[in-house]
Protein backbone atom coordinates (compact mmCIF):
# COMPACT_ATOMS: atom_id res chain seq x y z
CA UNK A 1 0.00 0.00 0.00
CA UNK A 2 1.28 3.42 -0.94
CA UNK A 3 1.54 5.79 1.97
CA UNK A 4 1.70 9.54 1.60
CA UNK A 5 2.59 10.32 5.16
CA UNK A 6 3.68 8.09 7.98
CA UNK A 7 3.96 9.22 11.54
CA UNK A 8 5.83 6.76 13.70
CA UNK A 9 6.01 6.74 17.49
CA UNK A 10 5.81 10.51 17.71
CA UNK A 11 6.19 12.01 21.19
CA UNK A 12 6.40 15.51 22.54
CA UNK A 13 7.12 16.36 26.16
CA UNK A 14 6.57 19.85 27.50
CA UNK A 15 8.20 20.93 30.75
CA UNK A 16 6.18 23.22 32.97
CA UNK A 17 6.99 25.04 36.18
CA UNK A 18 10.23 26.32 37.60
CA UNK A 19 13.61 24.65 37.98
CA UNK A 20 12.74 23.11 41.32
CA UNK A 21 9.17 22.02 40.76
CA UNK A 22 9.25 20.84 37.20
CA UNK A 23 6.34 18.90 35.76
CA UNK A 24 6.68 17.03 32.49
CA UNK A 25 3.56 16.77 30.42
CA UNK A 26 3.52 14.36 27.52
CA UNK A 27 1.31 16.24 25.10
CA UNK A 28 1.80 13.69 22.34
CA UNK A 29 2.54 10.19 23.53
CA UNK A 30 3.81 7.57 21.10
CA UNK A 31 1.43 8.45 18.29
CA UNK A 32 1.58 6.45 15.04
CA UNK A 33 -0.67 6.74 12.03
CA UNK A 34 -0.42 6.93 8.26
CA UNK A 35 -2.26 8.64 5.44
CA UNK A 36 -2.95 7.36 1.94
CA UNK A 37 -3.01 9.55 -1.17
CA UNK A 38 -6.41 11.16 -1.81
CA UNK A 39 -7.70 10.40 1.63
CA UNK A 40 -9.39 12.55 4.23
CA UNK A 41 -8.15 11.53 7.65
CA UNK A 42 -9.49 13.09 10.85
CA UNK A 43 -7.66 13.62 14.10
CA UNK A 44 -10.38 14.31 16.64
CA UNK A 45 -10.48 14.97 20.34
CA UNK A 46 -11.09 17.59 22.97
CA UNK A 47 -8.85 20.58 23.53
CA UNK A 48 -5.59 19.57 25.13
CA UNK A 49 -5.61 16.08 23.61
CA UNK A 50 -2.51 16.79 21.51
CA UNK A 51 -4.08 16.95 18.06
CA UNK A 52 -2.83 20.44 17.27
CA UNK A 53 0.64 19.67 18.66
CA UNK A 54 0.80 16.64 16.35
CA UNK A 55 -0.07 18.85 13.38
CA UNK A 56 2.49 21.46 14.41
CA UNK A 57 5.21 18.82 14.60
CA UNK A 58 4.33 17.50 11.14
CA UNK A 59 4.45 21.06 9.79
CA UNK A 60 7.81 21.65 11.43
CA UNK A 61 6.68 24.43 13.78
CA UNK A 62 7.61 22.33 16.76
CA UNK A 63 10.44 19.86 17.39
CA UNK A 64 9.38 16.39 18.40
CA UNK A 65 10.97 14.76 21.43
CA UNK A 66 11.14 11.45 19.60
CA UNK A 67 9.65 9.69 16.61
CA UNK A 68 9.86 10.00 12.84
CA UNK A 69 7.78 11.50 10.08
CA UNK A 70 8.03 9.94 6.63
CA UNK A 71 6.67 11.91 3.70
CA UNK A 72 6.36 10.15 0.32
CA UNK A 73 8.83 7.51 1.47
CA UNK A 74 11.57 9.95 2.52
CA UNK A 75 12.67 9.53 6.09
CA UNK A 76 14.61 12.77 6.46
CA UNK A 77 11.91 14.59 4.54
CA UNK A 78 11.74 17.59 6.88
CA UNK A 79 15.37 18.51 6.19
CA UNK A 80 14.56 19.29 2.57
CA UNK A 81 12.50 22.27 3.56
CA UNK A 82 11.40 23.59 0.16
CA UNK A 83 10.45 20.17 -1.13
CA UNK A 84 8.67 19.33 2.12
CA UNK A 85 6.61 22.50 2.45
CA UNK A 86 5.72 22.39 -1.22
CA UNK A 87 4.06 19.06 -0.60
CA UNK A 88 2.43 19.85 2.72
CA UNK A 89 0.47 23.04 3.28
CA UNK A 90 -1.59 24.25 6.22
CA UNK A 91 -4.95 25.91 6.81
CA UNK A 92 -5.57 27.41 10.21
CA UNK A 93 -8.54 27.98 12.46
CA UNK A 94 -9.00 31.72 12.31
CA UNK A 95 -8.60 33.15 8.81
CA UNK A 96 -8.44 36.67 10.22
CA UNK A 97 -5.38 35.71 12.25
CA UNK A 98 -3.78 34.00 9.24
CA UNK A 99 -3.41 37.20 7.26
CA UNK A 100 -1.89 40.49 8.38
CA UNK A 101 -4.77 42.99 8.48
CA UNK A 102 -2.58 45.76 7.05
CA UNK A 103 -1.53 43.88 3.91
CA UNK A 104 -3.67 43.08 0.92
CA UNK A 105 -4.19 39.34 0.65
CA UNK A 106 -2.90 39.06 -2.92
CA UNK A 107 0.60 39.94 -1.70
CA UNK A 108 0.73 36.62 0.14
CA UNK A 109 -0.10 34.85 -3.10
CA UNK A 110 2.56 36.58 -5.16
CA UNK A 111 5.14 36.04 -2.43
CA UNK A 112 4.41 32.32 -2.24
CA UNK A 113 4.78 31.97 -6.02
CA UNK A 114 8.06 33.85 -5.83
CA UNK A 115 9.42 31.80 -2.96
CA UNK A 116 8.74 28.53 -4.71
CA UNK A 117 9.71 29.85 -8.15
CA UNK A 118 6.40 28.87 -9.66
CA UNK A 119 5.69 31.69 -12.12
CA UNK A 120 7.72 33.18 -14.96
CA UNK A 121 6.17 36.65 -15.07
CA UNK A 122 3.31 38.70 -13.64
CA UNK A 123 0.71 37.47 -16.14
CA UNK A 124 1.71 33.88 -15.49
CA UNK A 125 1.35 34.46 -11.75
CA UNK A 126 -2.08 36.06 -12.13
CA UNK A 127 -3.29 33.14 -14.23
CA UNK A 128 -1.95 30.68 -11.68
CA UNK A 129 -3.65 32.49 -8.80
CA UNK A 130 -6.91 32.83 -10.71
CA UNK A 131 -6.92 29.11 -11.40
CA UNK A 132 -6.52 28.29 -7.69
CA UNK A 133 -9.15 30.83 -6.66
CA UNK A 134 -11.62 29.34 -9.15
CA UNK A 135 -11.19 26.00 -7.38
CA UNK A 136 -12.54 27.52 -4.18
CA UNK A 137 -15.28 29.50 -5.90
CA UNK A 138 -13.63 32.93 -6.06
CA UNK A 139 -11.91 34.87 -8.83
CA UNK A 140 -8.88 37.11 -9.18
CA UNK A 141 -11.01 40.19 -9.95
CA UNK A 142 -13.00 40.07 -6.73
CA UNK A 143 -9.88 39.42 -4.69
CA UNK A 144 -7.00 41.56 -5.91
CA UNK A 145 -6.13 44.64 -3.88
CA UNK A 146 -8.46 43.82 -1.01
CA UNK A 147 -7.61 43.70 2.68
CA UNK A 148 -8.60 40.76 4.95
CA UNK A 149 -11.26 42.89 6.68
CA UNK A 150 -13.09 43.30 3.38
CA UNK A 151 -13.91 39.59 3.23
CA UNK A 152 -16.43 37.65 5.28
CA UNK A 153 -15.11 34.84 7.48
CA UNK A 154 -16.25 32.13 5.07
CA UNK A 155 -14.73 33.91 2.07
CA UNK A 156 -11.43 34.53 3.81
CA UNK A 157 -11.20 30.88 4.82
CA UNK A 158 -11.64 30.03 1.12
CA UNK A 159 -8.87 32.48 0.29
CA UNK A 160 -6.57 30.76 2.77
CA UNK A 161 -7.40 27.38 1.23
CA UNK A 162 -6.57 28.80 -2.23
CA UNK A 163 -3.28 30.06 -0.84
CA UNK A 164 -2.46 26.61 0.49
CA UNK A 165 -3.20 25.13 -2.95
CA UNK A 166 -0.71 27.41 -4.75
CA UNK A 167 2.18 24.96 -4.50
CA UNK A 168 0.06 22.01 -5.71
CA UNK A 169 0.49 20.18 -2.40
CA UNK A 170 -0.34 16.52 -1.99
CA UNK A 171 -1.42 17.02 1.63
CA UNK A 172 -3.38 19.78 3.34
CA UNK A 173 -3.27 20.02 7.11
CA UNK A 174 -6.45 21.76 8.24
CA UNK A 175 -6.49 22.66 11.93
CA UNK A 176 -10.09 23.32 13.01
CA UNK A 177 -10.85 24.98 9.66
CA UNK A 178 -14.58 25.44 10.28
CA UNK A 179 -14.85 26.25 13.97
CA UNK A 180 -14.76 30.01 13.31
CA UNK A 181 -17.07 29.81 10.31
CA UNK A 182 -20.82 30.25 10.62
CA UNK A 183 -22.94 27.17 10.85
CA UNK A 184 -24.80 28.06 7.67
CA UNK A 185 -21.53 28.32 5.71
CA UNK A 186 -19.67 25.49 7.42
CA UNK A 187 -20.79 22.82 5.00
CA UNK A 188 -19.57 24.81 2.01
CA UNK A 189 -16.00 24.66 3.39
CA UNK A 190 -16.29 20.99 4.30
CA UNK A 191 -17.70 20.20 0.85
CA UNK A 192 -14.75 22.04 -0.63
CA UNK A 193 -12.35 19.50 0.94
CA UNK A 194 -14.34 16.67 -0.61
CA UNK A 195 -14.24 18.39 -3.99
CA UNK A 196 -10.47 19.03 -3.81
CA UNK A 197 -9.89 15.42 -2.89
CA UNK A 198 -11.92 14.23 -5.87
CA UNK A 199 -10.65 16.72 -8.45
CA UNK A 200 -7.02 17.14 -7.44
CA UNK A 201 -6.35 14.00 -5.44
CA UNK A 202 -5.28 16.04 -2.42
CA UNK A 203 -5.21 14.34 0.96
CA UNK A 204 -6.53 16.27 3.93
CA UNK A 205 -5.54 15.84 7.56
CA UNK A 206 -8.67 17.24 9.14
CA UNK A 207 -8.17 18.24 12.76
CA UNK A 208 -11.38 18.94 14.62
CA UNK A 209 -13.45 18.47 17.73
CA UNK A 210 -16.62 18.36 15.65
CA UNK A 211 -17.36 14.68 15.14
CA UNK A 212 -20.47 15.31 13.05
CA UNK A 213 -18.56 17.03 10.23
CA UNK A 214 -15.74 14.49 10.67
CA UNK A 215 -18.23 11.71 10.03
CA UNK A 216 -19.58 13.52 6.98
CA UNK A 217 -16.25 14.29 5.33
CA UNK A 218 -13.62 11.74 6.28
CA UNK A 219 -12.66 8.20 5.38
CA UNK A 220 -10.73 7.25 8.50
CA UNK A 221 -10.55 8.81 11.94
CA UNK A 222 -8.29 8.70 14.99
CA UNK A 223 -9.66 9.71 18.39
CA UNK A 224 -7.06 11.25 20.68
CA UNK A 225 -7.21 11.51 24.44
CA UNK A 226 -4.50 13.13 26.58
CA UNK A 227 -1.79 12.51 24.01
CA UNK A 228 -2.72 8.98 22.96
CA UNK A 229 -4.66 7.69 20.01
CA UNK A 230 -7.28 5.62 21.79
CA UNK A 231 -9.25 4.45 18.77
CA UNK A 232 -8.53 4.50 15.04
CA UNK A 233 -10.34 3.06 12.03
CA UNK A 234 -12.93 3.86 9.39
CA UNK A 235 -15.44 6.55 10.40
CA UNK A 236 -18.32 4.12 9.99
CA UNK A 237 -16.74 1.72 12.47
CA UNK A 238 -15.41 4.23 14.98
CA UNK A 239 -18.31 6.67 15.13
CA UNK A 240 -21.29 4.42 14.49
CA UNK A 241 -20.02 1.61 16.69
CA UNK A 242 -17.51 3.12 19.13
CA UNK A 243 -15.54 0.59 21.14
CA UNK A 244 -13.33 2.61 23.46
CA UNK A 245 -15.25 3.95 26.49
CA UNK A 246 -13.90 7.46 25.81
CA UNK A 247 -15.13 7.43 22.21
CA UNK A 248 -18.48 6.25 23.52
CA UNK A 249 -18.64 9.16 25.97
CA UNK A 250 -17.62 11.62 23.26
CA UNK A 251 -20.13 10.28 20.77
CA UNK A 252 -22.94 10.42 23.32
CA UNK A 253 -22.09 13.96 24.36
CA UNK A 254 -22.61 15.46 20.92
CA UNK A 255 -25.95 17.20 20.93
CA UNK A 256 -27.88 15.70 18.04
CA UNK A 257 -29.83 18.15 15.95
CA UNK A 258 -32.98 16.16 16.54
CA UNK A 259 -35.40 17.11 19.32
CA UNK A 260 -36.66 13.52 19.44
CA UNK A 261 -33.26 12.34 20.61
CA UNK A 262 -32.50 14.38 23.71
CA UNK A 263 -30.06 13.33 26.40
CA UNK A 264 -31.63 11.24 29.08
CA UNK A 265 -28.59 10.28 31.11
CA UNK A 266 -26.33 12.47 33.22
CA UNK A 267 -22.55 12.80 33.12
CA UNK A 268 -19.80 13.64 35.57
CA UNK A 269 -16.94 15.87 34.52
CA UNK A 270 -13.25 15.59 35.22
CA UNK A 271 -12.33 18.03 37.97
CA UNK A 272 -8.64 18.34 37.28
CA UNK A 273 -7.44 17.85 33.72
CA UNK A 274 -3.85 18.21 34.76
CA UNK A 275 -3.97 14.99 36.73
CA UNK A 276 -5.09 12.95 33.76
CA UNK A 277 -1.86 13.64 31.90
CA UNK A 278 0.23 12.43 34.80
CA UNK A 279 -1.91 9.38 35.48
CA UNK A 280 -0.22 6.01 35.40
CA UNK A 281 -1.82 3.26 33.38
CA UNK A 282 -4.80 4.21 31.22
CA UNK A 283 -5.35 7.98 31.33
CA UNK A 284 -9.11 7.60 31.10
CA UNK A 285 -9.28 5.31 34.16
CA UNK A 286 -10.50 8.11 36.44
CA UNK A 287 -13.73 8.58 34.48
CA UNK A 288 -14.20 5.20 32.82
CA UNK A 289 -17.40 3.31 33.71
CA UNK A 290 -15.71 -0.03 32.95
CA UNK A 291 -12.56 0.61 35.00
CA UNK A 292 -10.68 -2.49 36.20
CA UNK A 293 -7.81 -2.96 38.63
CA UNK A 294 -5.12 -3.22 35.96
CA UNK A 295 -6.30 -0.04 34.17
CA UNK A 296 -4.81 2.01 36.99
CA UNK A 297 -1.45 0.26 36.82
CA UNK A 298 -0.70 -0.80 33.25
CA UNK A 299 -0.89 1.25 30.07
CA UNK A 300 -3.13 -0.68 27.66
CA UNK A 301 -1.65 -2.03 24.43
CA UNK A 302 -2.93 -1.16 20.98
CA UNK A 303 -5.33 -3.97 20.08
CA UNK A 304 -6.92 -4.60 16.70
CA UNK A 305 -10.61 -5.44 16.86
CA UNK A 306 -12.27 -5.87 13.42
CA UNK A 307 -9.82 -3.51 11.66
CA UNK A 308 -10.17 -0.91 14.38
CA UNK A 309 -7.30 -0.04 16.69
CA UNK A 310 -8.43 0.26 20.30
CA UNK A 311 -6.23 1.17 23.25
CA UNK A 312 -8.23 -0.39 26.07
CA UNK A 313 -7.81 -3.27 28.53
CA UNK A 314 -11.42 -4.30 27.93
CA UNK A 315 -10.36 -5.80 24.61
CA UNK A 316 -7.15 -7.51 25.78
CA UNK A 317 -7.39 -11.23 25.05
CA UNK A 318 -7.13 -13.23 28.26
Amino acid sequence: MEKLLEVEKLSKVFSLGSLLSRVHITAVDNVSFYMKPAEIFTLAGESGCGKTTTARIILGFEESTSGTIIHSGKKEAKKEKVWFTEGIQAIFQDPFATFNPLRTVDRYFFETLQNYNLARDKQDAVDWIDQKLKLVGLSYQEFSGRYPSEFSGGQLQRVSIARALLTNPSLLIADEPVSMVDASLRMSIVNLFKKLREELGVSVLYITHDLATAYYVSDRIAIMFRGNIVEMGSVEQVLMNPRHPYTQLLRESIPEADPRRRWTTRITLAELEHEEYLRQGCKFAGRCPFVMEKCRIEVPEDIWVDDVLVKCHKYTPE
Partner: protein
Amino acid sequence: MKDSILRTENLKAFYVLDMHGTQKVIKAVNEVDLEIWENEVYGIAGESGCGKTTLLKALFGAIEPPLRWIGGSVLYHINDTAVDITTLDAEQKRKLRMEFISYVPQGSMSVLNPVLRVRDAYQDFISSHVSGKTRQDAFELARQHIIELGLPRNILDAYPHQLSGGMRQRVTIALAALLKPRIIIADEPTTALDVVVQRGVVQLLMDIQQKLKNTIVLVTHDMGVHANIANRIGIMYAGKMVEEAPTEQIFGNPIHPYTRFLIDSLPRFGDKSPRSSAPGSPPSLADLPSGCAFHPRCPYVIASCVDQAPALVKLSTDHKVACWRAGEI
Protein backbone atom coordinates in the same frame (compact mmCIF):
# COMPACT_ATOMS: atom_id res chain seq x y z
CA MET B 1 -53.08 30.14 27.58
CA LYS B 2 -49.58 30.60 28.87
CA ASP B 3 -48.53 33.70 30.77
CA SER B 4 -45.98 35.85 29.09
CA ILE B 5 -43.10 37.18 31.15
CA LEU B 6 -41.13 39.14 28.59
CA ARG B 7 -42.49 40.90 25.54
CA THR B 8 -41.09 43.24 22.93
CA GLU B 9 -43.15 45.40 20.61
CA ASN B 10 -41.65 46.58 17.37
CA LEU B 11 -38.25 46.79 19.04
CA LYS B 12 -35.55 48.67 17.17
CA ALA B 13 -32.01 49.09 18.42
CA PHE B 14 -29.38 50.37 15.98
CA TYR B 15 -25.69 51.12 16.27
CA VAL B 16 -25.15 54.67 15.10
CA LEU B 17 -21.54 55.39 14.22
CA ASP B 18 -20.16 58.73 13.23
CA MET B 19 -17.33 58.15 10.79
CA HIS B 20 -15.56 61.27 9.58
CA GLY B 21 -18.77 63.24 9.42
CA THR B 22 -20.87 60.58 7.72
CA GLN B 23 -23.31 58.56 9.76
CA LYS B 24 -23.29 54.82 9.52
CA VAL B 25 -26.36 53.03 10.85
CA ILE B 26 -26.15 49.34 11.67
CA LYS B 27 -29.63 47.87 11.99
CA ALA B 28 -28.82 45.14 14.49
CA VAL B 29 -32.32 44.67 15.94
CA ASN B 30 -35.04 45.70 13.54
CA GLU B 31 -38.79 45.54 14.29
CA VAL B 32 -38.65 42.53 16.57
CA ASP B 33 -41.86 41.32 18.21
CA LEU B 34 -41.25 38.67 20.79
CA GLU B 35 -43.36 37.02 23.41
CA ILE B 36 -41.56 34.77 25.84
CA TRP B 37 -43.56 32.71 28.32
CA GLU B 38 -43.05 31.76 31.92
CA ASN B 39 -41.31 28.45 32.58
CA GLU B 40 -39.88 27.81 29.15
CA VAL B 41 -36.53 27.67 27.41
CA TYR B 42 -36.60 30.01 24.45
CA GLY B 43 -33.78 29.53 21.97
CA ILE B 44 -32.56 32.15 19.53
CA ALA B 45 -30.49 30.94 16.57
CA GLY B 46 -28.82 32.63 13.64
CA GLU B 47 -25.40 33.22 12.17
CA SER B 48 -22.87 35.56 13.75
CA GLY B 49 -23.56 39.20 13.03
CA CYS B 50 -27.32 38.71 12.71
CA GLY B 51 -28.08 40.71 15.86
CA LYS B 52 -28.59 37.93 18.42
CA THR B 53 -26.32 39.44 21.05
CA THR B 54 -27.70 42.95 20.49
CA LEU B 55 -31.23 41.62 20.95
CA LEU B 56 -30.19 40.13 24.30
CA LYS B 57 -28.63 43.42 25.37
CA ALA B 58 -31.87 45.18 24.50
CA LEU B 59 -33.91 42.58 26.41
CA PHE B 60 -31.68 43.15 29.42
CA GLY B 61 -31.97 46.92 29.06
CA ALA B 62 -28.22 47.31 28.65
CA ILE B 63 -28.20 49.83 25.83
CA GLU B 64 -25.06 51.90 25.72
CA PRO B 65 -23.63 54.04 22.94
CA PRO B 66 -22.93 53.41 20.11
CA LEU B 67 -25.99 51.18 20.47
CA ARG B 68 -29.14 53.31 20.54
CA TRP B 69 -32.77 52.78 21.25
CA ILE B 70 -34.65 53.75 18.08
CA GLY B 71 -38.18 52.62 18.88
CA GLY B 72 -40.50 50.04 20.36
CA SER B 73 -40.63 48.70 23.87
CA VAL B 74 -39.43 45.86 26.08
CA LEU B 75 -42.00 44.82 28.65
CA TYR B 76 -41.32 42.74 31.77
CA HIS B 77 -44.33 41.18 33.45
CA ILE B 78 -43.58 41.56 37.13
CA ASN B 79 -46.40 40.26 39.34
CA ASP B 80 -49.07 40.83 36.69
CA THR B 81 -48.02 44.36 35.89
CA ALA B 82 -46.20 45.16 32.69
CA VAL B 83 -43.17 47.38 33.12
CA ASP B 84 -41.61 49.02 30.10
CA ILE B 85 -37.91 49.05 30.84
CA THR B 86 -37.19 51.66 28.21
CA THR B 87 -38.79 54.14 30.61
CA LEU B 88 -36.86 53.10 33.72
CA ASP B 89 -33.82 54.91 35.04
CA ALA B 90 -30.52 53.25 35.88
CA GLU B 91 -31.28 52.68 39.57
CA GLN B 92 -34.66 51.06 38.86
CA LYS B 93 -33.06 48.79 36.30
CA ARG B 94 -30.30 47.86 38.72
CA LYS B 95 -32.92 46.71 41.24
CA LEU B 96 -34.51 44.38 38.70
CA ARG B 97 -31.21 42.86 37.70
CA MET B 98 -30.19 39.53 39.16
CA GLU B 99 -33.43 39.33 41.14
CA PHE B 100 -35.86 39.45 38.24
CA ILE B 101 -33.60 39.04 35.23
CA SER B 102 -29.97 38.01 35.01
CA TYR B 103 -27.57 37.87 32.12
CA VAL B 104 -24.73 35.46 31.37
CA PRO B 105 -22.74 37.32 28.71
CA GLN B 106 -20.72 35.78 25.92
CA GLY B 107 -17.29 34.52 26.92
CA SER B 108 -18.44 34.62 30.52
CA MET B 109 -15.78 32.15 31.53
CA SER B 110 -13.47 35.16 31.61
CA VAL B 111 -15.67 37.53 33.64
CA LEU B 112 -14.38 36.41 37.03
CA ASN B 113 -11.83 38.74 38.59
CA PRO B 114 -8.50 36.87 38.36
CA VAL B 115 -7.15 38.21 41.65
CA LEU B 116 -10.20 37.32 43.71
CA ARG B 117 -11.11 33.90 44.97
CA VAL B 118 -14.48 32.63 43.74
CA ARG B 119 -15.89 33.09 47.26
CA ASP B 120 -14.96 36.79 47.20
CA ALA B 121 -16.62 37.21 43.82
CA TYR B 122 -19.77 35.68 45.31
CA GLN B 123 -19.54 37.87 48.38
CA ASP B 124 -19.12 40.99 46.27
CA PHE B 125 -22.15 40.04 44.30
CA ILE B 126 -24.30 39.25 47.32
CA SER B 127 -23.39 42.41 49.20
CA SER B 128 -24.26 44.60 46.22
CA HIS B 129 -27.67 43.03 45.62
CA VAL B 130 -28.88 41.83 49.02
CA SER B 131 -28.81 44.15 51.99
CA GLY B 132 -28.22 43.16 55.60
CA LYS B 133 -26.10 40.06 55.12
CA THR B 134 -22.91 39.53 57.06
CA ARG B 135 -19.87 38.04 55.34
CA GLN B 136 -20.54 34.76 57.11
CA ASP B 137 -24.18 34.68 55.93
CA ALA B 138 -23.14 35.50 52.40
CA PHE B 139 -20.55 32.75 52.40
CA GLU B 140 -23.07 30.28 53.76
CA LEU B 141 -25.56 31.26 51.04
CA ALA B 142 -22.93 30.81 48.35
CA ARG B 143 -21.81 27.48 49.74
CA GLN B 144 -25.33 26.10 49.86
CA HIS B 145 -26.06 27.30 46.36
CA ILE B 146 -22.94 25.62 44.98
CA ILE B 147 -23.77 22.32 46.66
CA GLU B 148 -27.40 22.38 45.49
CA LEU B 149 -26.25 22.73 41.91
CA GLY B 150 -23.86 19.83 42.25
CA LEU B 151 -20.64 21.77 41.78
CA PRO B 152 -17.62 20.74 43.84
CA ARG B 153 -17.59 22.71 47.10
CA ASN B 154 -13.86 23.44 47.08
CA ILE B 155 -14.21 25.74 44.06
CA LEU B 156 -15.18 28.58 46.40
CA ASP B 157 -11.61 28.68 47.66
CA ALA B 158 -10.06 28.54 44.20
CA TYR B 159 -8.82 31.39 42.05
CA PRO B 160 -10.38 31.53 38.57
CA HIS B 161 -7.14 30.48 36.85
CA GLN B 162 -7.14 27.25 38.83
CA LEU B 163 -10.45 26.22 37.27
CA SER B 164 -10.93 24.91 33.74
CA GLY B 165 -12.91 26.93 31.21
CA GLY B 166 -15.95 24.71 31.62
CA MET B 167 -15.88 25.00 35.40
CA ARG B 168 -15.59 28.80 35.23
CA GLN B 169 -18.51 28.87 32.84
CA ARG B 170 -20.56 26.82 35.28
CA VAL B 171 -19.52 29.02 38.19
CA THR B 172 -20.75 32.13 36.34
CA ILE B 173 -24.04 30.48 35.41
CA ALA B 174 -24.51 29.42 39.02
CA LEU B 175 -23.78 33.01 40.08
CA ALA B 176 -26.42 34.31 37.68
CA ALA B 177 -28.97 31.96 39.25
CA LEU B 178 -28.09 32.80 42.85
CA LEU B 179 -30.97 35.17 43.58
CA LYS B 180 -33.52 32.94 41.83
CA PRO B 181 -34.30 35.30 38.95
CA ARG B 182 -37.45 34.72 36.90
CA ILE B 183 -35.51 35.11 33.65
CA ILE B 184 -31.95 34.07 32.83
CA ILE B 185 -30.50 35.29 29.55
CA ALA B 186 -27.53 33.22 28.38
CA ASP B 187 -25.43 34.26 25.39
CA GLU B 188 -23.49 31.40 23.74
CA PRO B 189 -22.85 29.62 27.06
CA THR B 190 -21.56 26.47 25.36
CA THR B 191 -19.40 28.01 22.66
CA ALA B 192 -15.64 27.37 22.85
CA LEU B 193 -16.16 24.44 25.22
CA ASP B 194 -15.41 20.80 24.55
CA VAL B 195 -18.35 18.57 23.80
CA VAL B 196 -18.30 16.71 27.10
CA VAL B 197 -18.00 19.96 29.08
CA GLN B 198 -20.66 21.52 26.87
CA ARG B 199 -23.01 18.80 27.89
CA GLY B 200 -22.23 19.55 31.55
CA VAL B 201 -23.17 23.20 31.01
CA VAL B 202 -26.44 22.27 29.29
CA GLN B 203 -27.14 19.89 32.16
CA LEU B 204 -26.60 22.71 34.68
CA LEU B 205 -28.89 25.10 32.80
CA MET B 206 -31.63 22.48 32.70
CA ASP B 207 -31.19 21.74 36.41
CA ILE B 208 -31.57 25.42 37.23
CA GLN B 209 -34.62 25.78 35.01
CA GLN B 210 -36.32 22.77 36.55
CA LYS B 211 -35.57 23.92 40.07
CA LEU B 212 -36.62 27.53 39.70
CA LYS B 213 -39.37 26.93 37.12
CA ASN B 214 -38.23 30.13 35.45
CA THR B 215 -37.53 31.22 31.89
CA ILE B 216 -34.24 30.82 30.07
CA VAL B 217 -33.51 32.76 26.91
CA LEU B 218 -30.67 30.92 25.23
CA VAL B 219 -28.65 32.21 22.32
CA THR B 220 -26.38 29.82 20.48
CA HIS B 221 -25.56 29.03 16.89
CA ASP B 222 -25.29 25.34 17.73
CA MET B 223 -28.56 23.79 16.54
CA GLY B 224 -27.72 20.59 18.40
CA VAL B 225 -27.85 22.43 21.72
CA HIS B 226 -31.17 24.03 20.76
CA ALA B 227 -32.61 20.65 19.83
CA ASN B 228 -31.66 19.35 23.23
CA ILE B 229 -32.88 22.09 25.54
CA ALA B 230 -35.20 24.63 23.88
CA ASN B 231 -39.00 24.49 23.98
CA ARG B 232 -39.41 27.11 21.30
CA ILE B 233 -36.89 28.56 18.85
CA GLY B 234 -36.73 31.90 17.08
CA ILE B 235 -34.57 32.13 13.96
CA MET B 236 -32.94 35.51 13.36
CA TYR B 237 -31.62 36.77 10.06
CA ALA B 238 -30.15 40.23 9.47
CA GLY B 239 -31.67 41.79 12.58
CA LYS B 240 -35.15 40.36 12.16
CA MET B 241 -37.01 37.32 13.40
CA VAL B 242 -37.79 35.26 10.31
CA GLU B 243 -39.36 32.21 11.92
CA GLU B 244 -40.59 31.17 15.35
CA ALA B 245 -42.00 27.79 16.32
CA PRO B 246 -41.78 24.97 18.87
CA THR B 247 -38.50 23.06 18.59
CA GLU B 248 -40.12 20.00 16.97
CA GLN B 249 -41.66 22.22 14.30
CA ILE B 250 -38.42 24.05 13.53
CA PHE B 251 -36.57 20.77 13.02
CA GLY B 252 -39.41 18.77 11.52
CA ASN B 253 -41.20 21.33 9.40
CA PRO B 254 -39.10 24.43 8.76
CA ILE B 255 -40.89 26.90 6.47
CA HIS B 256 -38.59 29.87 5.86
CA PRO B 257 -35.99 29.10 3.14
CA TYR B 258 -33.21 30.30 5.46
CA THR B 259 -34.33 27.97 8.26
CA ARG B 260 -34.48 25.13 5.74
CA PHE B 261 -30.88 25.74 4.70
CA LEU B 262 -29.86 25.91 8.34
CA ILE B 263 -31.55 22.60 9.22
CA ASP B 264 -30.67 20.77 5.99
CA SER B 265 -26.99 21.67 6.22
CA LEU B 266 -26.57 19.97 9.61
CA PRO B 267 -24.42 16.86 9.32
CA ARG B 268 -26.00 13.81 10.91
CA PHE B 269 -24.46 10.54 12.06
CA GLY B 270 -25.31 7.60 9.88
CA ASP B 271 -26.14 9.80 6.90
CA LYS B 272 -23.39 10.70 4.47
CA SER B 273 -25.63 12.14 1.75
CA PRO B 274 -24.35 15.47 0.39
CA ARG B 275 -25.36 18.55 2.36
CA SER B 276 -25.22 22.08 1.07
CA SER B 277 -25.08 25.47 2.70
CA ALA B 278 -27.10 28.52 1.77
CA PRO B 279 -25.46 30.14 -1.26
CA GLY B 280 -23.69 33.50 -0.91
CA SER B 281 -22.79 35.10 2.38
CA PRO B 282 -24.71 37.00 5.06
CA PRO B 283 -25.46 40.67 4.31
CA SER B 284 -23.87 43.56 6.13
CA LEU B 285 -26.24 45.08 8.67
CA ALA B 286 -25.06 48.53 7.61
CA ASP B 287 -26.09 47.96 4.02
CA LEU B 288 -29.11 45.69 3.89
CA PRO B 289 -30.62 44.49 0.63
CA SER B 290 -34.04 45.92 -0.24
CA GLY B 291 -37.20 44.06 0.72
CA CYS B 292 -36.59 40.72 2.39
CA ALA B 293 -32.92 40.70 3.47
CA PHE B 294 -32.59 37.04 2.44
CA HIS B 295 -33.72 37.55 -1.15
CA PRO B 296 -30.23 37.66 -2.79
CA ARG B 297 -29.54 34.18 -1.41
CA CYS B 298 -33.02 32.73 -1.73
CA PRO B 299 -33.80 30.14 -4.43
CA TYR B 300 -37.54 30.94 -4.30
CA VAL B 301 -37.26 34.71 -4.84
CA ILE B 302 -40.15 36.54 -6.57
CA ALA B 303 -40.66 40.21 -7.42
CA SER B 304 -42.38 41.18 -4.15
CA CYS B 305 -39.40 39.84 -2.13
CA VAL B 306 -37.20 42.51 -3.69
CA ASP B 307 -39.71 45.33 -3.12
CA GLN B 308 -41.05 44.80 0.34
CA ALA B 309 -40.01 43.06 3.54
CA PRO B 310 -42.53 40.43 4.71
CA ALA B 311 -43.90 40.71 8.25
CA LEU B 312 -43.73 37.88 10.78
CA VAL B 313 -47.21 36.34 10.50
CA LYS B 314 -48.95 33.40 12.11
CA LEU B 315 -49.12 30.34 9.93
CA SER B 316 -50.72 28.19 12.60
CA THR B 317 -51.34 28.74 16.32
CA ASP B 318 -47.69 28.56 17.31
CA HIS B 319 -45.77 28.81 14.05
CA LYS B 320 -44.80 32.26 12.76
CA VAL B 321 -42.93 32.94 9.52
CA ALA B 322 -41.78 36.08 7.71
CA CYS B 323 -41.81 35.00 4.06
CA TRP B 324 -43.96 36.04 1.11
CA ARG B 325 -44.08 32.52 -0.18
CA ALA B 326 -44.75 30.72 3.11
CA GLY B 327 -47.23 27.92 2.53
CA GLU B 328 -46.57 27.58 -1.18
CA ILE B 329 -42.92 26.49 -1.26
